[in-house]
């Protein structure tokens, strides 16, 4: 599949950077280093199904009777004459009481084949994203499963975005849906993402730069209008699992990294979770003001994606302990009710459309190509040892290179 720029914006940025490439390093690069804080992040999707006709078989629907989410239905069905609100109250009272009833959101593998969940079946629907195939070798993903790539929304082809295929027919992921605005929690300070570049010789063309993608240990700094502020200082999350390091190169103003396993934090209903993205590639433009814009694309294990977005099965509280069952279960079931899907339907669709990491025994793929549209602005990124990526802080007893000595760029694949 060809590797082309996916948007007009990328191309324009390239031209502008090529023009300024001859200039001295801009303000956001200091001593060959630059830091960024992600100011915007959302799933790379497409136009609404109503616009692009992606869903000829209709849109996803949820449980007709909410009691269907429970495995043992006895006594929980909607009673004759019972108001919906009353039924819901009774359901939650029984299902999440002292003796919780097994539900399909925590146990989606127990569900019967579901025919209410719809996925994108139309051909040639243009989507956002990049072509991952030339960027992520099969040796990292363990191979791929057959799937149909998408054309790019601004041209190009070969876009690997099975996440969109699964959720393109779900109301929650349309432009007015609620599930693609998860960055709200980032803007309230619950979590954040940092990016660092080191060893920059030329912001327009550089054969090799060191790249770090980290969870932030500090809340994002906002203006009174709640816009992220540039040049704030953020510390890297101290947990090694939230620290990804790789290499990248800049060609005509476009930074493309080698794949690396990335893991960021996020929070739903006070349930803290990891949001992993395996074999992730960052492909972004950098404009003169140091604004990074592009994609963070990779693969998400089906079990991980289901957990952090739908089942909350391994969500923790603020202390790192498993969050209360009532909270996890209630959130998972409640979300399926509110957003209109069946938990087993999501789970089955995810596996049905997984395109990477085939099981050596069964051949069934276990990971789904997933892409985020990201923007980032200049920031000062400091290590837990209170050092900065943008300034010479030798006086503080810290050398920038130490961050990269800590973990080799190869970032070897962990056993799944």
């Amino acid at each position, binding site marked *: 599949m060809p590797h082309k720029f996916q948007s007009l914006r990328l191309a324009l940025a390239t031209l502008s950077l090529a023009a300024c490439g001859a200039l001295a390093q801009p303000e956001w690069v*200091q001593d060959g280093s630059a830091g960024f804080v992600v100011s915007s992040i959302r799933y790379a999707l497409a136009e609404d199904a109503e616009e692009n006709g992606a869903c000829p078989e209709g849109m996803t629907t949820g449980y007709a009777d909410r009691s269907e989410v429970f495995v043992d239905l006895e006594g929980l069905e909607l009673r004759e004459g019972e108001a919906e609100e009353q039924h819901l109250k009774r359901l939650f009272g029984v299902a999440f009481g002292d003796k919780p009833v097994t539900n399909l959101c925590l146990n989606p593998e127990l569900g019967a084949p579901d025919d209410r969940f719809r996925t994108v079946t139309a051909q040639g629907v243009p989507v956002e994203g990049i072509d991952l195939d030339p960027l992520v070798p099969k040796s990292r993903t363990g191979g791929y499963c057959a799937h149909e790539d998408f054309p790019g929304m601004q041209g190009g082809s070969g876009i690997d975005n099975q996440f969109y295929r699964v959720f393109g027919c779900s109301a929650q992921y349309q432009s007015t849906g609620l599930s693609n605005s998860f960055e709200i929690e980032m803007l309230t300070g619950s979590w954040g993402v940092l990016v660092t570049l080191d060893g920059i010789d030329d912001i327009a063309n550089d054969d090799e730069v060191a790249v770090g993608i980290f969870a932030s240990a500090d809340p994002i*700094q906002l203006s009174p209008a709640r816009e992220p*502020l540039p040049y704030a200082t953020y510390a890297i999350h101290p947990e090694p699992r939230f620290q990804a390091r790789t290499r990248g190169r800049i060609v005509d103003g476009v930074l493309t990294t080698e794949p690396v396993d990335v893991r960021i934090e996020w929070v739903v209903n006070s349930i803290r979770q990891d949001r992993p993205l395996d074999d992730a590639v960052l492909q972004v433009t950098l404009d003169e003001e140091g604004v990074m814009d592009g994609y963070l694309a990779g693969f998400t294990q089906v079990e991980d994606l289901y957990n952090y977005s739908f089942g909350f099965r391994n969500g923790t509280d603020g202390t790192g302990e498993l969050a209360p069952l009532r909270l996890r279960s209630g959130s998972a079931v409640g979300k399926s009710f509110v957003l209109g899907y069946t938990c087993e339907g999501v789970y089955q669709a995810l596996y049905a459309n997984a395109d990477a990491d085939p099981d050596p025994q069964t051949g069934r793929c276990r990971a789904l190509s997933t892409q985020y549209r990201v923007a980032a602005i200049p920031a000062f990124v400091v290590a837990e040892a209170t050092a900065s990526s943008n300034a010479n802080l030798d006086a*503080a007893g810290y050398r920038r290179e130490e961050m990269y000595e800590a973990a080799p760029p190869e970032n070897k694949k962990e056993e799944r």
Partner: protein
Amino acid sequence: MKSCKTIALRLLLCASVSFPAGFAGAAASGTASLAEPPGTGGPPMLRRLTEAQYRATIADVFGPDIPVTARFERALRSEGLVAVGTSEAGLSAFALEQYDTAAGAIAAAVLAPERRERFVPCDSPPVQHFDPDCAAAFIERHGTRLFRRALEAEEATAWLDVARAAHTRLGDFYAALEFTLVGMLVAPDFLLRVEAVATTPAADGSPRLDAYSRATRLSYFLTGSAPDAGLLAAAGRGALDSPDGLAREVDRLMAGPRYEAAVREFFTDMLRFDLFDDLAKDPVIYPAFNSTVAADAQEQTLRTITGHLLAGEGDYRDLFTTRAAPLTRSLGIVYRQPVAVRNGWQEGEFSERSGRVGIQSHLSFLALHSHPGRSSPTLRGKAIREVFLCQHMPDPPVDVDFTGINDDTNAARPTARDRLQAHATETQCKACHVLMDPAGLALEYYDGLGAFRTRENGAEIDVSGALDAKSFAAASGLGTALAEHSQTTSCLVRRMYSFATGRRELPGERAYLEYLDATFAAAGYRVPALMRAIALSDAFYRIAPETNDEVATGHDVPAAGES
């Protein structure tokens, strides 16, 4: 009860003292002697406590846990200092209302059951019973600290009568004490620093402040608060009359923990930080500005000053060239510098890239002397001359046309220099703008909030400037010019003396001020040495004979050595 009714508030109507450009201070001329010249002194003053002094006094007398809940009236600035304005401003009805509110809250907290043991100097008298000895002890103990002097017998009796009457009405001993304390806290003797003249003149026959007035003047100058028990005791036994006794107290106060607070109070006043209360910035143009940035900006400058002048025992002039940059994360966003420390201050230096040197390149100066949506070389140049050189710049004529200078979207005049050029060619504007703009233009690399930039509306900014005869190419040159300007140090001397006395300097004090100039120079322009010289000088406490009419006589104490 002593009242301020008998004390006249002296409005000083002396001729204005100006410092034309090129004025050479005595220190520079080398003609001054280090022996204090005979001086005339000034009038006894009646000065209202500033908000900072009020809060510090309450904290010192009753403890920092006692709340001061009031909105204080806006301070009046005169001769460049609020400290001088305190001797010229009246008390509005609003101010009295707020003082009454604060007094009620303070008295309620002091007499709260959990604190009575701390503040009532007797063993839990029954609530219903009025204990005159206990009440008298309470009045004596706190009245002395609040009024900053020993209470006269009839005065103490009057307050005791107040307490007794309150008990009769309220039937509660502690409520009666609370009522009495409220009365003391709204009394002029507390709210105003009432200076009295000693009935016994100095050894040379000249009138002088009485011992408690001297102690009060000294204490607020060197600690920003009321005299502590030790200083009041020293005043009471006449120890401040002897040079050695005075020196002991001065050195004790300057070595104490509150001395730094006094230095901060002076520079807060001199740098006009009270204007931050009204500072507004357009959030669209300056999204990083918020109340935290405003507070941290002031603190940054004060930390730089005290770190350099006190901890570093530095030369005052170096404040204009220092690259020291204590930063918080909020400030780091504006200065575009990393701040590793999460919740607190990180010591460091401004990056060379930013070109910042000196406190005049701090946000506290740049943001304060700018417009809400753009920088202002004129306001900054005006402030440089008024704040740091003690020069007076007149207000613009009422009919001046600001259209051109306000239009920062005019493509033909993209930079402030371009716009000012057109503005300053008008005859009515030129005379003042040639004094103000060249200095302010050197700071144009910093926008209306103080963030670094090199271009305005796409055009390269020219930061060349001039201060009097010295031209320079950037902000660093302005810092050097300020450090080397002959009026920089003499301005500080005059501001410091006015801060200490609460009045402008008088014509008869020129020789004394030249002595201070020379002392300051001889000490390597160390500010503590200047403050010590003022505190130890006769002139600081001397009362001009012609002003010694119609003022209250004070409290005689035994002469030094008699106690």
